[in-house]
């Protein structure tokens, strides 16, 4: 069995000898995360579960619309605050206390090898970076997990993706993903298991960028193996014991695909979708932009803010461009503040917002108007997602977005980074 199948087997409600593609497994869930967006779901507000299966395993994290941009959201989330009291939920993280749910869950040590976590966010697949499973679920399904502590999965085929070599120059983890996306296209109902001699060169945050983005390939799960890099990331984050999960030595996969990370250049996804729709940034260089956005669960990380600050140091955002930067969690915001990144971004003429999903999902703080052209390091570039249906959204790494903000057009960040590292 591979990593995904072994975690299913371990969580199966009834003991099973084997788990294989096509099986439906009923599993016990280790933790459940409810988001503020649930407050906009009448099916929950009108039919709240009586009580959680285990109140200590249920967390509430407000992240999508922080702080509330309108009366409807404010009223909806207040009902959730009431629900948190009714359920006596201790793990409740209101505005200013948490951040984007799965990024915050990871930094808080809730993501441990071998676990299954239920969350409604469709980028929950990010948890694969921590050698565990999580995937997007709908609110009605989350209600089921809160009531019963259980849910089901249809076991998909698994593709092995081997990452070899080491990223060079201005290439970031997002570029590795965009290259994968261009070559692999969409793979609904399929899992990815990462391997290869290069993964040891990727930090856990970089792995999480890649696994988060695999939602855009329509993958179910995208898991990394457990190794020393993950072991040291987890060290000190949690007291809870965990058991790393490795695939069987002789395991075979539906297919195998290799990517040499040392050959990957900065990439851009063209507007409207990501899978099968990416190009080297150099090929799109020169396309004019109106807005540049850095943020989201995928790329509102400390690395992203560092990368933006490195490019923006001593430069200004182009006159006709607005740059909006949204850290993913409160803790990343504070670290970036201490390290001076937020100041550098602001001095360059960028707007730094509080942590939230915000503009990524068309919520607030940086929506696009009619005819706007944007480049973003967030998670999705669907037509109409970030505001007007007439806007065009390119997607790239935070370095490419920052470099593009400075020039006012899509820019491979390589030259700008080199110029700044010479100083």
């Amino acid at each position: 069995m591979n990593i995904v199948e072994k975690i299913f087997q371990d969580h199966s409600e009834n003991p099973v000898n084997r788990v294989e593609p096509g099986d439906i497994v009923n599993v016990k869930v280790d933790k459940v995360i409810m988001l503020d967006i649930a407050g906009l779901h009448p099916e929950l507000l009108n039919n709240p579960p009586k009580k959680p299966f285990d109140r200590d395993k249920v967390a509430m994290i407000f992240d999508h619309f922080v702080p509330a941009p309108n009366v409807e959201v404010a009223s909806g989330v207040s009902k959730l605050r009431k629900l948190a009291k009714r359920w006596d939920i201790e793990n409740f993280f209101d505005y200013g206390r948490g951040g984007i749910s799965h990024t915050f869950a990871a930094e808080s040590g809730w993501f441990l090898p071998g676990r299954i976590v239920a969350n409604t966010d469709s980028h929950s697949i990010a948890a694969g970076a921590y050698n565990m499973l999580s995937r997007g679920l709908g609110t009605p399904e989350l209600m089921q997990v809160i009531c019963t502590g259980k849910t089901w999965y249809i076991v998909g085929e698994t593709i092995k993706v081997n990452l070899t070599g080491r990223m060079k120059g201005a290439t970031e983890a997002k570029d590795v993903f965009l290259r994968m996306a261009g070559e692999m296209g969409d793979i609904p109902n399929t899992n990815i298991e990462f391997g290869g001699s290069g993964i040891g060169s990727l930090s856990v945050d970089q792995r999480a960028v890649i696994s988060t983005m695999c939602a855009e390939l329509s993958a179910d799960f995208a898991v990394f193996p457990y190794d020393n890099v993950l072991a040291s990331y987890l060290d000190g984050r949690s007291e809870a014991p965990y058991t790393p999960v490795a695939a069987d030595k002789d395991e075979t996969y539906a297919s195998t695909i290799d990517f040499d990370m040392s050959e990957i250049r900065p990439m851009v996804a063209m507007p409207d979708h990501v899978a099968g729709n990416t190009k080297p940034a150099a090929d799109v260089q020169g396309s004019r932009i109106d807005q540049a956005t850095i943020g989201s669960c995928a790329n509102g990380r400390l690395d992203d803010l560092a990368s933006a600050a490195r490019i923006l140091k001593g430069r200004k955002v182009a006159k006709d461009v607005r740059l909006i930067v949204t850290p993913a969690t409160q803790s990343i915001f504070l670290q970036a503040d201490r390290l001076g990144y937020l100041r550098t971004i602001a001095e360059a003429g960028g707007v730094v917002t509080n942590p939230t999903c915000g503009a990524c999902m068309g919520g607030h703080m940086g929506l696009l108007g009619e005819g706007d052209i944007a480049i973003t390091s967030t998670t999705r570039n669907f037509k109409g997602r970030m505001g007007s249906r007439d806007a065009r959204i390119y997607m790239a790494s935070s370095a490419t977005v920052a470099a593009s903000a400075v020039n006012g057009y899509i820019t491979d960040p390589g030259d700008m980074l080199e110029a700044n590292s010479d100083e």
Partner: protein
Amino acid sequence: MNKVLKGKVWAFGDNINTDLMYPHACYTLPEEERPLHTMWANRPGWAQQVNSGDILVAGKNFGVGSSRPAASNLKGLGISVVVAESVNGLFLRNSVNVGLPVVSCQGVSGIVREGDTVTVNLETGTLIDETSGKTAEFRPLPGFLMDIIEAGGIIEVLRKNGYIDSNPL
């Protein structure tokens, strides 16, 4: 619930995502108005033309995207079943959990045209295009999922099992 569904086809292409089906504005609209904004960005005015019992046929990777209740909008418009070349796993779950059948049927977009009348048999896994006479086969949904659909969605299952509080928030 009727497992043989006959209706008029609306045809869509590949990669129809959740944000097209459930634009952001829906989140803050009254519940009954939300479905009227379905496909706002890619096919404005479509939602107003859908009749109860119509069938949506689409290309590959249907429902890629977020966990937003996109299937609820389709169901709210009266779509009786979605038949696509391939279906995103999250969309499938959300669809089943609100009681809307969705099936993967390879080759369907090549044989069915918009405006055709089709009959979809959820039990036998067959689709007949009554207009052209062409047919396609698909793997029926597992019984476990059909049970949730027949119950009217997962919340009805929870209610039946005594999990739901009768005091709304």
